């Protein structure tokens, strides 16, 4: 009844703007948005937020390619940002001109995937390597040999992701080959390495990593750093490796799709996220670093001291890339040949 009264009033006064401004549709990976963050934003702005979730960058891409779907905020990974931009799926936000832009860390202001932050600001970033149960394996964990030349203790107890590009990327780094390789001879080496490893792999699966590690089904599992913290919470013997050959890094980014129904609210949300205090809420929730300087002061003690979030000096961080169709085709052939 109240709603009807207000809408009648709104009509009489001719201010429909009040209604157009009160919503924001966020499309993000599940369990990757801190509930407290949303509540705080709603309280501060009076905008009501609806959160929907997806499972992969490809799903997001396919849905945005198919036309408007009513989302105001999406969160593509950095190696997909260029695709989204070149396909014309995002609208400029010119983040460097927004309130709070001075807080962007140097690494994430003007990143290689989005010059001048025209389309995106960083959401969370992290690394992909592997978690080792040091009760089972007590050697040097900071090398890919743990995965690809496994000692007897971990043979048959290795878990790998079920994702061609993430598995092939670390194989390439361990062999010292460039990412997104288009050279067939190099990719043959990658295939040989992965085929030699396969008998020692228990499962290729990106779900349920924590359970397999904790239950002892696997002793080594390819993993993300923030997720490895959760494994260590359950069992202190779980250590996250920073292989000296190099560690894959990634960043998920906030962007506004074309045709977003509530562009102004999306901008408000983005400015909100560039406040150190706010983005720290998200980091505390998900366990990943963010790209806003000054947020450390608001982070929990657990996160401040987590070795998972601070790669040792001298270990190169390699941001994964947007691969060419030729490189994707080669990856695809290697993956099919591996799992045929």
């Amino acid at each position, binding site marked *: 009844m109240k709603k009807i009264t207000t809408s009648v009033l709104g009509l009489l006064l001719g201010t429909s703007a009040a209604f157009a401004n009160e919503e924001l549709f966020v499309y993000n990976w599940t369990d990757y948005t801190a509930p407290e963050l949303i509540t705080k934003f709603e309280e501060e702005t009076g905008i009501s937020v609806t959160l929907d979730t997806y499972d992969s960058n490809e799903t997001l891409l396919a849905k945005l390619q198919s036309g408007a779907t009513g989302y105001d905020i999406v969160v593509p990974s950095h190696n997909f940002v260029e695709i989204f931009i070149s396909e014309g799926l995002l609208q400029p936000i010119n983040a460097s001109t927004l309130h709070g832009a001075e807080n962007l860390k140097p690494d994430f202001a003007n990143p290689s995937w989005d010059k001048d932050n025209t389309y995106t600001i960083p959401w969370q970033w992290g690394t992909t390597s592997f978690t080792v149960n040091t009760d089972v394996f007590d050697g040097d964990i900071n090398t890919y040999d743990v995965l690809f030349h496994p000692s007897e203790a971990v043979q048959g107890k290795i878990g790998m992701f079920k994702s061609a590009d993430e598995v092939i990327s670390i194989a390439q780094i361990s062999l010292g080959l460039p990412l997104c390789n288009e050279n067939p001879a190099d990719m043959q080496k990658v295939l040989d390495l992965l085929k030699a490893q396969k008998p020692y792999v228990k499962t290729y699966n990106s779900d349920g990593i924590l359970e397999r590690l904790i239950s*002892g089904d696997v002793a080594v599992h390819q993993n993300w750093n923030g997720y490895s913290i959760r494994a260590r919470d359950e069992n202190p013997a779980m250590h996250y490796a920073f292989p000296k050959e190099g560690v894959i890094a990634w960043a998920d980014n906030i962007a506004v799709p074309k045709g977003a129904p509530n562009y102004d609210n999306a901008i408000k949300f983005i400015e909100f996220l560039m406040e150190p205090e706010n983005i720290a809420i998200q980091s505390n929730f998900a366990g990943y670093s963010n790209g806003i300087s000054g947020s450390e002061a608001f982070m929990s003690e657990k996160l401040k001291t987590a070795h998972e979030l601070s790669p040792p000096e001298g270990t190169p961080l390699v941001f994964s890339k947007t691969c060419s169709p030729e490189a994707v085709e080669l990856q695809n052939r290697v993956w099919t040949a591996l799992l045929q």
Partner: protein
Amino acid sequence: MTSLRETLRSHLALIPATATITIFMVLPILIILVYSFLAPGDYGGGKPEFSTNAYQRLLFQRDLFDQMVFDPAYLKIAFRSVWIAVVSVVGCLLLGFPVAYYIACQPEERRNIFLLLITIPFWTNLLVRTYCWILVLRDTGLVNVGLMRMGLIDEPLTLLYTEGAVALGLIYTYVPFMVLPIYASLERMDRRLIEAARDLYSNRWVALRYVVIPLAMPGIIAGAILVFIPALGAFIAPDLLGGGKNLMLGSLVQLQFSSARNWPFGSALAMVIMAMVLMCLFFYARSAKKNGGGIKH
């Protein structure tokens, strides 16, 4: 004119279902058919140029050095999927038939309760239920711990991440699709038919063979179709319980539309799967016609 109106009238009841499927299924499939003859787009989708590459790929592959060679990779994946789907159908039938028969022989109100009992588990998401099987089957799972406590084995048996686990998962997922149609065809089974058969043959199993099974045949066929086709394209059980170490048709198609970014090849695979299934159904229909198709009253 009248004949057209007559035809329309007699087909009236068919129109909602067929129209819905034609508009929302056949038209989209035609789009997929078109995709299968395009070149892959750089980031998913297709490029508007005619190409039969997607179909050639099924059997021939450019090796890493761009030579066209015969490549059995996809055939192997297809045979593995068909084999597991057949095992699932047989498993579902062996388990489902006695259950459907038993339920059909119950008093009426109890029958409905049994039916509802079958559907209760499905209120829980498939992924969640499949995770529960991992708890049962893994090295530190219920079965292994139980057997070791009883002293029957010293080392855990490898149950999880095997093809057996995949078949178990598929049977678990699809067995109700077998029970319900068989039950539906047996439910008003005339007990006098069995009485007559017992008088004639005086053996329960002979009566089963010559009376009950022919009566259940429409249900068995419906159930086999309902199990076989989804099992062929399944990917949750193969990934979770099979360990994802070997691709199945379902995951292969899935891969093409996601990280492999090759929609035309995914579309071509789908067309081939559809063609295979249609052919099986066609041959079934023809042989059923020849043999008079089950019992006639």
